[in-house]
């Protein structure tokens, strides 16, 4: 049973190992077959040299210590280079540019989503101080990682020609160190964010209605939703949770090479990390747009924690009703913070 489990594990690892395929060629026992071939075909060294590309041959040794130092050649490096320098850099880069352009076009076409009703002046607490602290910890670390990641992946093509070698290398070292130290902070804060917001992001039946109308994106009519609408829930599960886990796990693989993981694992981690990060960044552009200039009152909600009752009724009707019910019909409170926010911000 245990043996079978082990075989499955090996098979699963091999199946995942897109780049480790050449390793499969170096089967155990091939060295003995070669020894036999040395007798029958003394001049034919082909199988011997095929073995050079595989590293896990127990008969391949070196006196030099280090990660995979007994591997003479690893062809997977070229595959990684083609993926990173080709598909990821080119398509990934243009994807980010295209999404920015699309959002810009949408803003030009639709403009910000304004409140239909007049503000009531009564405030509802939408995000407590813990909620906001967690959100902004994730947000700030995410933006730092995104900017530094962009410098590392695209800087050579965008910034280096402008800055020159010395200045750009200085910036890149800074970017790399910020990326490597903020990364674990982001992973930790993402876990906190998941715990904090998971309850109100559980899917509900009425989310289907929101999805079928695309949240009123084109009609301009709001669809009633709970504390978070289906779009926010999709961002929570697909972005924060799924992509958060993917970039964090692959990031740790790359960030701690002191555990002596091999190059194949780090190449795969890097490819997955870069693709997931590009998708994460494009989705985050949408989230940032909707949360700032795209929706009147959304940014203030996360900054001050309070929203106007009119805003709550329009954007999150079910949540508005629930909150009123929980407040025992008392309605919103005009907190000092909210009043100050009202004074400086989001006029109708």
């Amino acid at each position, binding site marked *: 049973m245990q043996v079978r489990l082990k075989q499955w594990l090996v098979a699963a690892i091999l199946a995942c190992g897109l780049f480790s395929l050449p390793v499969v060629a170096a089967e155990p026992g091939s060295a003995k077959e070669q020894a036999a071939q040395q007798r029958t075909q003394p001049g034919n060294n082909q199988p011997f040299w095929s073995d050079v590309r595989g590293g896990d041959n127990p008969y*391949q040794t070196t006196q030099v210590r280090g990660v995979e130092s007994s591997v003479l050649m690893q062809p997977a490096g070229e595959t990684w280079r083609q993926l990173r320098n080709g598909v990821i850099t080119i398509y990934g880069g243009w994807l980010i540019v295209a999404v920015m352009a699309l959002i810009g076009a949408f803003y030009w076409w639709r403009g910000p989503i304004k409140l239909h009703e007049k503000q009531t002046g009564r405030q509802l607490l939408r995000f407590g101080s813990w909620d906001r602290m967690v959100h902004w910890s994730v947000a700030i670390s995410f933006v730092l990682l995104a900017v530094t990641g962009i410098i590392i992946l695209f800087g050579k093509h965008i910034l280096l020609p402008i800055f020159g070698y010395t200045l750009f290398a200085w910036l890149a070292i800074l970017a790399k160190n910020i990326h490597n130290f903020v990364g674990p902070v982001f992973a930790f804060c993402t876990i906190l964010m998941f715990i904090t917001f998971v309850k109100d992001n559980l899917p509900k039946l009425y989310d289907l209605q929101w999805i079928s109308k695309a949240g009123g994106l084109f009609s301009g009519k709001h669809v009633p939703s709970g504390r978070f609408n289906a779009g926010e829930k999709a961002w929570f599960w697909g972005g924060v949770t799924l992509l958060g886990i993917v970039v964090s796990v692959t990031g740790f693989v790359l*960030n701690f090479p002191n555990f002596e993981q091999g190059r194949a694992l780090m190449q795969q981690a890097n490819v997955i990390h870069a693709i997931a990060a590009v998708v994460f960044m494009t989705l985050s552009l949408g989230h940032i747009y909707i949360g700032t200039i795209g929706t009147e009152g959304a940014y203030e909600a996360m900054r001050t924690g309070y929203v106007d009752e009119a805003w709550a009724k329009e954007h999150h009707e079910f949540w508005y009703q629930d909150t009123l019910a929980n407040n025992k019909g008392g309605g919103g409170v005009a907190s000092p913070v909210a009043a100050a926010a009202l004074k400086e911000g989001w006029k109708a």
Partner: protein
Amino acid sequence: MARMKFLCDAERCIECNGCVTACKQEHEVPWGVNRRRVVTLNDGLPGEKSISVACMHCSDAPCMAVCPVDCFYKTAEGVVLHDKDLCIGCGYCFYACPFGAPQFPQDGAFGLRGKMDKCTFCAGGPEDDNSAAEFKKYGRNRLAEGKLPACAEMCSTKALLGGDGDVVADIYRNRVLKRGKGSEVWGWGTAYGKPEKGATPPTGAKS
């Protein structure tokens, strides 16, 4: 001008590690960094062979292609060198290199690997030839002194050849013709099989 290449004759290499020692001694490389290593294939089995490997100074160098700060450059003789002042120690060259040439002085928690170090074909770096700064960062610049790499010069069986690719290939061809076997020129397809890229002589130091 000559195009510098390494060639290791697997029929001759006896795994004495003289090249490894010569390299360490010549360049005073830090502990834990090995610019050259000897790998033995089928160790202890009939048909055992050994290969000495370091940076092969590829024609289309993957390290050069993936470096996020573009710190690599190629001399007029085809030697792939890098500028440690620019290197950010990301390790990408190590992922990409087929030969495992790039080395890092630190263990790398939080990606702190230090500046990459690798074989320079005994050609130093972007600093002034044979200056103290160049020696400290890259080791001796033997090419500037009119000498060939220390590892190949030190090789007791002349298995490791380093120098003008055409001359090296001629020597090897004669050997193969005489002994009638061992014609495989290990690593040359990977290192020199593609068209030359980035071979512009540097105009002084980049930084």
